[in-house]
């Protein structure tokens, strides 16, 4: 019955599937605070794919969501036109969306180019973000032992140099050159949070002399419509991160300080 289900949005039952006239259902946290989900939201806006947002929350996540994504995390997307197939993990969602535009809609997109080397470079940068860089950001932020601050900030800067060097090698202004790609949007939500939270809690800013290209890259990305529409403002970042600080949040293991 329409309107009777508590999770009904847009007139359909979100636990079952999006209105078939909507190609895609996008699952995210309330207020879209999750940086991983923000990657996929930027991708959706950049590609101009129509979609429907469903906010999901809970610790643990509700059963109906665990049936959709057994890992209970966001982002996830569900595609009614592809038999309600579910895709999760931000990198996999984003590559899927680019493949969908290229092979299903038969349209040109530039977020994920067709050149094999460029694709490998994008994937390597994204792997670096997830496996090397992001833990340095959260470990520094959450560190309570001031003697270790300098070392942790250095570790983070070393991890970030890979990006500064990528900009130098490609000529910029984006990591692969002229074109904004999945490599830029993968790290962007983390840099947004890094800049605000480290300034607020550590009095730290990225040094201009070391990261002049990266800082220019950051300003340029902030001007994109997709980024403006999907970002939290600074005050909200601080409010969200205050809760993390209060709870000594582990950031899914990325905070490597021993509690």
């Amino acid at each position: 019955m329409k309107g009777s289900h508590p999770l009904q949005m847009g007139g359909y039952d979100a636990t079952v599937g999006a209105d078939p006239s909507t190609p895609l259902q996008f699952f995210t946290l309330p207020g879209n605070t999750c940086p991983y989900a923000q990657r996929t939201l930027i991708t959706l806006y950049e590609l101009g794919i129509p979609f429907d947002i469903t906010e999901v929350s809970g610790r643990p996540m509700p059963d109906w969501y665990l049936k959709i994504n057994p890992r209970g995390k966001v982002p996830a997307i569900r595609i009614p036109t592809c038999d309600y197939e579910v895709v999760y993990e931000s990198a996999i969602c984003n590559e899927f969306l680019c493949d969908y535009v290229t092979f299903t809609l038969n349209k040109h997109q530039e977020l994920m180019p067709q050149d094999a080397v460029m694709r490998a470079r994008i994937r390597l940068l994204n792997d670096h973000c997830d496996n090397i860089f992001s833990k340095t950001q959260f470990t520094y932020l959450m560190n309570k032992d001031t003697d270790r601050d300098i070392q942790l900030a250095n570790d983070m800067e070393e991890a970030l140099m890979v990006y500064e060097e990528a900009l130098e090698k490609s000529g910029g202004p984006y990591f692969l050159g002229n074109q904004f790609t999945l490599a830029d949007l993968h790290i962007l939500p983390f840099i947004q949070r890094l800049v605000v939270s480290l300034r607020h809690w550590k009095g730290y800013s990225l040094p201009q002399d070391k990261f002049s290209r990266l800082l220019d890259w950051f300003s340029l990305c902030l001007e994109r419509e997709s980024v403006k529409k999907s970002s939290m403002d600074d005050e909200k970042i601080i409010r969200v991160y205050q809760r993390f600080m209060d709870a000594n949040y582990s950031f899914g293991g990325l905070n490597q300080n021993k509690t």
Partner: protein
Amino acid sequence: MKAFLGLSLIFALEIIQQSTALTFYPRGSRSRVPRRPTGEGTLQSRDKKNIMDAGSLERILALKGGYDSTIGPDPSNPIQFFTLAGGMCPYAARTLIVFHELGLPFETVEISGKPDWYLQINPRGKVPAIRVPADNNEVIYESSICDEYLCDMYNNMNQDSTSTLMPNDPIQRARIRLLNDQTDTVLSPAFFTYFMNNNDTKDEEMLQKLENALNFFENALKTYGGPYFNGLEFTLADVHLLPFFLRMVVTLRHYKKYTLSEEKYPRLLKWFELCSERNSVKVASKPDQVIIETYKKFKDMNYKFGGLNKN
């Protein structure tokens, strides 16, 4: 005399490097990104001063194919493949399977330890890595990234007959990538943690975690029809799991007295049998006894498996 020979060899190698540079690049695989400045992959680089040293002539002559593999492969081979000496690394085994499935010519360089020259190639010092002279000596590492690159490269070169290792359908690609993510982030930690566990009271709980992880794969075979994970065709989803599955089956049987039951995993066991018949898989696999001996060493040194052993 030695120095003279050394000089002639250097000039000879330089000539080979330059003249073959143009003739051996396969069409269609040339990169369209701005080229890196020269220095890496050519003999004009820093290594030249090493070559002039006394012992270096012996070093060059002792190297494979008569060239210095720290600089670049023999230009007549399109791709240089870095793997561990002894070939035991399951991650590198994946990429080896892909090379054979695609029939791409390549040259193997075995690494032991983390020599400086290798850290300059792959800063993470791990295998597999590949270096591609046809794409300006581009270096690619991480097995899934290497494997997707090889498929992308193959398909770009063979547009009329693309490989089925990585199909074009977006949903199938997402499924394959999700299965591979499951292999790396759920199954392999569960396997290594269970294998390395010495606390009897925790064995059952860890085995349960492993079986839950395996259920995911059994279900995938059921849902998509099998016999391979994507259905009728062998894909990167099969490649990605195979080297781990082999090691798991052998070591758990030998050290934990555990075998996968026919009742719980009928499709998975059939899948493994079928895949093991492929030539590419045979080439990349090691005999049971070698696996057992290698894993005994891991047990003895309380090996962390790069963090995947959660004990």
